């Protein structure tokens, strides 16, 4: 009899999902699926609303990365108004996104993923979380929490609140950065740098030791990588154009405009998940599998452009390849991106242009369709709006980072299950908890945000089910 193992809910990610492992009658693994089981319908209920509301509305999609939606919506609004925002507004938005990347990556690394690395895959699931980390290594936990707080505090200094600010608007931003806020950022930067230095040292030690196998089997497969780069190919997070690089390192497409995304990105649908399956159109579905996010951004760029981040990027490439194809390297990439963000923040806050000049332009509607793009912590985010002549939305399409990693997450889960599940699984055998945790951890590499990706609500616990050929649940693990 065939069986299906179901991990439901998946824990320590943002959103709600389950994983099913399908076994054939002999107990061999035949299929693995990462199901996203949420639905919210933002694209539909935004229709009829003024486009100027989209920054405020779409920021509500997610409490972790509201800034990403805010910026993508504001950028799309800029294009509908057909204006170029003032330099100070552009730099203030950049500062906001850098703070967002920093806080989100710190959350992913310290709060969500490091308990696996530091407490062990086999440790008690009840303690394998940030509270367990606090008990085991309070200094590290405190430093990680304060690093996230550093990013969050910048968001508040700029936007007036840590989450769901509506500070970026079509035409620019609402308020400038105060001198006190600038001083606070500069004051706290050394501590943030020290924390990421500590995390990098620790992580590299783990990579040389207990995490060697994970680096190899956690989603190491060839795929395309997509991300924004500057015109000269440097790391970019808000402006710039799209670049695709393949697993051999060749640039497949470069300087693509977000306006043309429908020409190179397709969205497939599977009946078992609310999460769409975007793919690179020229290669078709599912061969057009591509990854986005911190690893993809570092893979597609030539270099970051700042000294410390470039040193760390060189080491990442030395350890994991160029491009790095293991999904486990997302964790390392996140730390390198925090370095890049801290360096960029330091440069930006000392830029005199940040503090002077206009920060908001006002204009009437000048276009009926626009696409905005930004790099969210989890990858490239597209907002595509069509509006009538009064500026009311007639069509909304949001392509979310986590969705674009959907094919890769499924492949990662399958690879981990193949490696850690006994082959064949003896009839009636229990699946070890540590194995389930590794499967979950495969998903956590991508730091998925399912609230965003389905524009859906909820916490993200994990369920794993073992199903028989006829669909009956033979075994089930539930963690919330």
């Amino acid at each position, binding site marked *: 009899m065939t069986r299906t193992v179901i991990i439901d809910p998946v824990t320590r990610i943002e959103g709600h999902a389950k994983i099913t492992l399908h076994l054939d009658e002999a107990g061999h693994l035949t299929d693995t699926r990462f199901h996203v089981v949420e639905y919210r319908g933002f694209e539909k209920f935004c229709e009829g609303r003024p486009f100027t509301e989209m*920054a405020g509305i779409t920021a509500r999609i997610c409490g972790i990365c509201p800034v990403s939606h805010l910026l993508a919506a504001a950028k799309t609004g800029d294009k509908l108004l057909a204006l170029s925002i003032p330099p100070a507004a552009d730099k203030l938005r950049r500062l906001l996104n850098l703070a967002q990347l920093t806080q989100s990556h710190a959350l992913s690394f310290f709060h969500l993923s490091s308990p696996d690395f530091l407490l062990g895959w086999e440790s008690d699931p009840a303690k394998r979380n940030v509270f367990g980390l606090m008990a085991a290594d309070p200094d590290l936990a405190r430093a990680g929490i304060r690093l996230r707080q550093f990013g969050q505090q910048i968001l508040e200094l700029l936007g007036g609140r840590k989450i769901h600010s509506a500070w970026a608007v079509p035409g620019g931003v609402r308020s400038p950065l105060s001198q006190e806020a600038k001083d606070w950022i500069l004051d706290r930067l050394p501590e943030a740098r020290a924390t990421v230095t500590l995390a990098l040292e620790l992580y590299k030690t783990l990579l040389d030791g207990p995490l060697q196998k994970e680096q190899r089997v956690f989603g190491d497969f060839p795929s395309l990588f997509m991300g924004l780069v500057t015109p000269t190919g440097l790391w970019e997070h808000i402006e710039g154009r799209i670049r695709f690089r393949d697993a051999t390192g060749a640039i497949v497409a470069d300087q693509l405009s977000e306006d043309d995304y429908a020409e190179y990105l397709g969205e497939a649908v599977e009946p078992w998940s609310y999460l769409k399956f975007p793919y690179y159109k020229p290669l078709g579905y599912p061969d057009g599998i591509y990854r986005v996010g911190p690893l993809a951004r570092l893979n597609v760029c030539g270099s970051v452009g700042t000294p410390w981040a470039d040193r760390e990027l060189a080491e990442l490439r030395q350890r994991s390849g160029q491009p790095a194809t293991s999904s486990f390297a997302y964790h390392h990439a996140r730390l390198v991106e925090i370095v890049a963000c801290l360096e960029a923040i330091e440069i930006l806050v000392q830029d005199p242009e940040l503090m002077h000049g206009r920060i908001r332009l006002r204009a009437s509607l000048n276009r009926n369709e626009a696409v905005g793009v930004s790099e969210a912590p989890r990858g490239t985010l597209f907002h595509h709006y069509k509006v009538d002549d009064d500026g009311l939305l007639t069509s909304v399409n949001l392509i979310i980072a986590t969705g674009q990693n959907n094919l890769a997450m499924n492949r990662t889960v399958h690879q981990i299950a193949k490696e850690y599940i006994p082959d064949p699984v003896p009839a009636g055998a229990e699946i070890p908890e540590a194995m389930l945790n590794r499967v979950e951890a495969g998903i956590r590499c991508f730091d998925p945000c399912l609230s965003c990706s389905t524009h859906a609500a909820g916490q993200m616990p994990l369920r794993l089910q073992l199903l028989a050929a006829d669909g009956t649940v033979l075994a089930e693990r539930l963690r919330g």
Partner: protein
Amino acid sequence: MAVVTLNVNGQDVAVPAGASLLEATRAAAADVPTLCHLDGLNPVSSCRLCLVEVEGSNKLLPACSTAAAEGMVVHTHTPRLREYRRMAVELFFAEGNHVCAVCVANTHCELQDMAVTVGMDHSRFPYQYPQRSVDASHPQFTLDHNRCILCTRCVRVCDEIEGAHVWDIGSRGGQCHIVAGLDEPWGQVQACTSCGKCVEVCPTGALFRNTDTTAEKQPDASLPALLRSARDQHRWHNQ
């Protein structure tokens, strides 16, 4: 000047003859809530929040449109009135589509403030989720029917102060809605002077400037009283 004396919540007050009960309650420092009322505009008593109890009357009376009379004994905050006021605010929320988090008027909304005042933390009535439209045809302003509570401040300020009478109420019962001109898109109504007074007096985010985004609306509801007193006192040279 003739005055009338009456008792509000146990306190004797004297107000000019012809003053409303609302003015009398203010003289007694009794904080009677209002939504549709606005100083400078004629009262319509549509929101029912200023209802008070008057001894000798078997019905509740709207303070804004009831004249103060000699010897009246008025109660403004009885348990029954508190309950009715809260119920009225709950009905406002249940009847429209009020999403404060993304509304232009968030933190500057009189309906939101009123919910706090009357102690409403949820509506006990089922939300109606009506299908309503947004009129963004005006080059400067937008009307979102989802947020309209039919207070008619816009109707009155446009008629009584601006003299343009762009706004009216169309349809009946639950289908009642604000209409511009002869139920035309606002941007096509030639009578509109684009003065923006309707936007300033709107207590919610139903009327707003096109450039306003979440929580950016900064209305000025004192405008009608200022303009009316200026007019009455002939402050303008051409009067």
